[in-house]
């Protein structure tokens, strides 16, 4: 038995040494060596991540994974998608199964500080709303006293709901559900008076109702839901790469660089655009990539506006206006620090 315990101790020590070595190797080196970006996405959220007929991942979040892969690996298709539920996403990231989370994840204090995550940027400003049948005669969220509410468990929306009703001294009966699809079914079957989740999700869900005109999304937005990509604590270089790739997409919109004209724009003499696209300066090498990294990211999936309009915009079934997500010059919050 003694021998056995020595052997076990040796294995444990070896495992610890190996894992501490693993912590030293940067994510960038890991991704380059692997040749594939492991990207954690939602198992299915309309507009953000879903599979099409041929099994290709599509959506706002899935496309941004491709942008990062294009910047780092030179090919937007070198992405391995890891679909994750709300409860497993952070564990998958922290156990290094994934390199980055693009999974409509709300940036909160506790997640940033206590779960040891690095939030990169808010790629989508969302907020929690309510949908209700017009026939119920409710016009404002404060009139929801005593209502049954369909609510997804394990999300920030659950906590926001409790806060809001407590602050307004009104009561509700929660109907806990797991997925958006389940909520939709329960709501349509009238098992709950109202369904609450991010307003983007409500709009996407309402678009699928047979009589979408009979349902009202209440004007109150009761929370801030800044959604964006997440990486592990402790690898600043990798965080910078993801952060500045997202900024490059936003700056692309600002400077009018699109997937179609990226090459032509690179040769123009506008200094800001030239620095962004790598025809001037050495920004790419500073970040550990080559000079064309940002151009590749934009060429792969388009700039921020293109990605938004293709997946969520008013011409899609989701039909969302830019709102807070408009570029800052158009009165929104999407703002990239300068590339210099």
């Amino acid at each position: 038995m003694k021998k056995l315990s020595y052997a076990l101790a040796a294995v444990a020590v070896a495992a610890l040494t190996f894992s501490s070595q693993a912590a030293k190797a940067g994510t960038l080196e890991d991704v380059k060596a692997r040749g594939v970006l492991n990207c954690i996405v939602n198992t299915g959220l309309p507009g953000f991540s879903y599979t099409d007929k041929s099994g290709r991942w599509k959506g706002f979040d899935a496309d941004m994974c491709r942008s990062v892969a294009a910047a780092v690996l030179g090919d937007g298709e070198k992405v391995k998608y890891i679909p994750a539920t709300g409860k497993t996403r952070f564990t998958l990231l922290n156990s290094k199964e994934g390199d980055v989370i693009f999974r409509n994840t709300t940036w909160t204090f506790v997640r940033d500080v206590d779960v040891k995550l690095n939030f990169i940027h808010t790629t989508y400003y969302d907020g929690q709303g309510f949908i209700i049948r017009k026939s119920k005669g409710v016009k404002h969220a404060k009139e929801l006293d005593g209502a049954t509410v369909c609510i997804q468990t394990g999300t920030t929306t659950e906590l926001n709901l409790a806060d809001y009703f407590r602050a307004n001294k009104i009561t509700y009966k929660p109907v806990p559900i797991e997925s958006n699809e389940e909520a939709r079914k329960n709501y349509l079957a009238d098992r709950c008076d109202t369904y609450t989740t991010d307003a983007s999700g409500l709009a996407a869900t309402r678009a699928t109702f047979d009589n979408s005109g009979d349902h009202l999304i209440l004007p109150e937005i009761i929370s801030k839901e800044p959604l964006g990509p997440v990486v592990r604590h402790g690898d600043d270089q990798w965080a910078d790469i993801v952060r500045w790739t997202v900024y490059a997409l936003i700056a692309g919109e600002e400077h009018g660089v699109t997937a179609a004209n990226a090459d032509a724009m690179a040769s123009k003499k506008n200094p800001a655009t030239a620095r962004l696209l790598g025809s001037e300066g050495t920004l790419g090498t500073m970040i550990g990539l080559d000079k064309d990294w940002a151009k590749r990211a934009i060429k792969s999936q388009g700039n921020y506006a293109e990605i938004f309009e293709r997946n969520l915009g008013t011409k899609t079934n989701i039909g969302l206006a830019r709102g807070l997500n408009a570029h800052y010059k158009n009165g929104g919050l999407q703002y990239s620090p300068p590339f210099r």
Partner: protein
Amino acid sequence: MTLSKTEKPLTVTEDGGYLPGTHPDLPPPASVHGPVHWIQYNLFGSVTNTALTLLTIYFLYTVIPQLVDWIYLDAAFEGESRKDCRAVANGACWAFIGNRLSLFIYGFYPEAERWRVDLTFVLLILALVPVLYDGTPQRGKALIYSCLYPLIAAFFLVGGFGLERVPTDQFGGLMLNIIIGVTGIAFSLPIGILLALGRQSHLPIVRILCVSFIEFIRGVPLITLFFVAAVMLSYFVPPGTNFDLLVRILIMGTLFASGYMAEVIRGGLQAIPKGQYEAADAMGLKYWQSMRKVILPQALKISIPGIVNTFIGLYKDTTLVIVIGRLDILGIGNSSLADSKWQGLSTEVYVFVAIFFFISCFSMSRYSLWLEKKLHTGH
């Protein structure tokens, strides 16, 4: 009136009557036999029965027409989006299932290589025949093939040696359920038998190891084991060793089913009278001989319902792989439903998945019934 063929030659008297004791058996009168009697006896036998029957008929009358409407009469079978479906019909939109069928079956397996999955499946059926049916011609040789089948399947599915390699993270859909289910079923039975025997062993170390393993497995939910396999192991194995996630899942699923299997078989072992053990010893049989020739054949026969129960449970549990980021048939359904072209068709997906699981599980349970009848020698 027809007489049965097995009747003795008739002995008829001159006036056309029968001699004493030679009258053939007549079928029972219609009042105690036949469909009318069956209905009277089983459906309207008492006041309660009559009420229940009428209630059931009314219930079926209200439900069935709507169900048939939804499933078939008012269903759409073609279209490229939910809108197309709704334009022609208000019932089920089977076009969605048709549109995504290959995704449901093969997951993300490369399209050009999907023949390999089909081939593996056909070979699986061929490998199952000698295992399940003892009348197979050349059964001995066929069983060797069955034992080699896991290697053959792994070769075709994963590739290498001339075939293009397909990483296991591209496995998905129904094939993933079948791979995990069949592997777990095939390996959990022998491991479970060994564990059950080990638990009854007179050797303390073997017994303690088996008991702690079984109790540990039974004390932990499968979803936790999957999660440990997916995320915890990477903390312990050295970086660079890419211990394939699917293999980890297969091992965990098999171990989980083995723990349960061991207890089912222990139940069977304990039901065998002590005299059987003593008789085997008295014959001078060694431990393994007595197990193989006397005890296990009886114990396993008693345990069949429990064994198949465990199989079916494991098979349905394969849908839990969603927690570790693999999309099985149900997961593919979820990710496809998020396509805004098709959003809102979850009922169709669940019905489809339910049909698939029902077919698989029902055939397992019918097979076990057949086997029980065949092995029933107790009379």
